[in-house]
């Protein structure tokens, strides 16, 4: 074993498309096991960044149903990167994003890189939102991507950017 491992977690509210994004990215994946009873799934994908092969262990954490039933934070611990997934057709997008970022940074170091995915962009290509205040609040927030697991839009780019950033730290 001489490959670098990195743990990425995907968090977001219920049914925003976390699992679909991972499935799109890990297509023809080597492993895709599921433990539905404990509310999480782990996938593995190896990618090459320059000369280095990186083994990504992607934790798909069951979406929080509401603000009261929050996700199990212990799954988030020790992540090297996080993608917060949002469904553009849902309401209260910003509120949800802040909630998930708060959860994540309450158990992880403040310098862990994060990316926001505005998913299901295929449903509304004209979608736009101003989240400059969130970027101001969270300096480790790298970028936001408009993604579509359905049309395979920006999925690869998003994971690659996050992986590059994780290698820097």
């Amino acid at each position, binding site marked *: 074993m001489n490959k*670098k491992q990195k*743990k990425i977690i995907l968090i977001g509210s219920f049914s925003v498309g976390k699992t679909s994004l991972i499935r799109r990215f890990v297509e023809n994946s080597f492993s895709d096991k599921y433990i539905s009873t404990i509310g999480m799934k*782990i996938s593995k994908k190896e990618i090459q960044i320059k000369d280095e092969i990186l083994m990504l262990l992607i*934790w798909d954490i069951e979406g929080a149903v509401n603000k009261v039933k929050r996700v199990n934070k212990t799954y988030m611990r020790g992540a090297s990167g996080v993608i917060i997934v949002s469904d553009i057709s849902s309401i209260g997008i910003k509120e949800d994003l802040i909630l998930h970022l708060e959860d994540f940074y309450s158990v992880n170091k403040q310098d862990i890189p994060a990316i926001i995915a505005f998913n299901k962009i295929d449903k509304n290509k004209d979608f736009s939102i101003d989240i400059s205040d969130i970027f101001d609040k969270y300096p480790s927030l790298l970028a936001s991507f408009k993604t579509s697991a359905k049309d395979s839009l920006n999925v690869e780019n998003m994971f690659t950017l996050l992986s590059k950033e994780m290698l820097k730290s």
Partner: protein
Amino acid sequence: MNKEFEKLRELIVQKEIDQLDDIILRVKNIENSQKRDILVKSLSKIIVEILVENINNDENKIYSVVHPFVIKGLKEELNGTNDEISKILGPLISSSIKEQVHKEKDSIVDALYPIMGNMVSKYVTNAFKNMMVEINYKLQDTLSTEIIQRKIKSKIYKISEAELLIKESNFAKVNSIFLIHKESGMLILDAHREDNKKIDEPEMVASMLSAIKSFVNDWISNQDKMSEVSEIEYGNSSILIESAGSVYLAVVIDGKSDFNLQEEISFTLSKVILNHAIEISEYDGDPETIKSNDIIKILSTLFYNKSKNKNKNKLENKFPIFSTILLIFFILTPLSWSGFNSYKEYLIKKAEDSIISLIQKNNIKIYDFKIQTDNKIIEIEGIVLNQNEKDKLNILMLNTNVVNSVDCVNYSFLNQYIKLQLNKILFDYNNKYGSNISYIINNDNKIILKGSIIDINAKNELANYLNKIFKDYKLEFNIKLLPKFKDRIYFEVSSFEISEKYNIILDNIYKLLKIHNSYKIRITGYTDIQGDTLFNKNLSFKRANSVKTELIKRGINKKSIIISFVAAPPNDILDTLTQKNISRCVAFNWEINSSE
């Protein structure tokens, strides 16, 4: 007569008769066919009744008629590719088996017994055979130290030697070891027994195990029960989990684990931690940061533990037993004592950590929490503010070695308790540093410290100390830092006249007193070691007083000035014989204890 008539009739009308017969037959046929349709129509209405009637009358006959067709049909269906029948029968079979087992348990057991019984007895026989081989091996080894140990153990623990022998024979075999980073669930490294197949995707195993562990720990803690996942069993194998602060070991074994193996795993993990604590706690997924070979070397001892023991026994047999034991004893005692102590410390630390994390997980707020371990007994002390928390704590510590000495008090008691502690600390502190720090406790239970202090280091020292002691409280420091008076005014021998060159110093002191006008200044006069004490006392007073006069001249209220005098050099003069010129002086200090 009749015959003749018949013959005559045949001769005359036979042909017509035949034709007539034919016509009649045809007509009958036509009638019959019409009748048949009518018959079919009529019969079809009552065919079910006919069948029921016939079945009632002669069931066997109907069965014998139908049976060949049913069998033929079934054969054709089963030989073909059509799996309709299995689809139809599948659910029926399982439910009928269930029902049958429920109704006729004994007969089902009887039916299966010859097959299952044979299988079980074959398995047990094999297991016994293996055990016998192992026991025989041990018995043949009669002169080994092991047998003496066993005899002693048997006497001490009152367990028969045979039972001990069986226990020894029933050892577990370690197949794979995973060292996993606790927080991230990333695999640090894995090791496998040489004769064992390597597990595919060990990284996934590590992540999944961590997820399961997190889930169970999280769930258990919600259930207010003290527990941690330590073993996952499947059939005759298990995964033993041994956790430390930043890593845990998952050990896959065949057979049943026992206390010795668990102890050994715990000891091995502590060895890994002692030697590689920093690199494994800071592991970020880069295998190059880990000294894998060293760690695998330590972990691999778990694989070969048994065989090592056997080799050792063989060696020992060649030497006189008791002298060898004594030699080993003398060599190893100091070493093992230090090893034992560090291992003991590690275990104590681990136990204390787990108690602290348990208390934190259950959101029990204990003020002035202390944890002490003395000879396997852990005692926790502190104060909680409501009985519920005390009860919760009692439940958590049930069936453990922890002595729960946490008291439940109300807020006013807690306030009194804090005040007593604070009074004592600040009294000592103000005396030591000449400060005037006091405190108030506001309605939010916040401790606000106020007052003044001269030395920044002293201020930091106090802040650190109080933060440590009162870590469960909110602390606010409103402590003013006063500038230190560095300069002194020096005098000629036997003189109390102030040279003009000290005007700058006096002006600066005036300015500082104006800025901090709520504080008083203490002026102390000193002399060198020469001369009469009474004279010197008078002289030192005069020196202090002349400085006081100068400050009053500049506009300082005389009430803000306190003077004192000693017939000796200041305490910080190291060599009073050679440093007489700097001994004759006046020094300045803030008199903050008596400030208004």
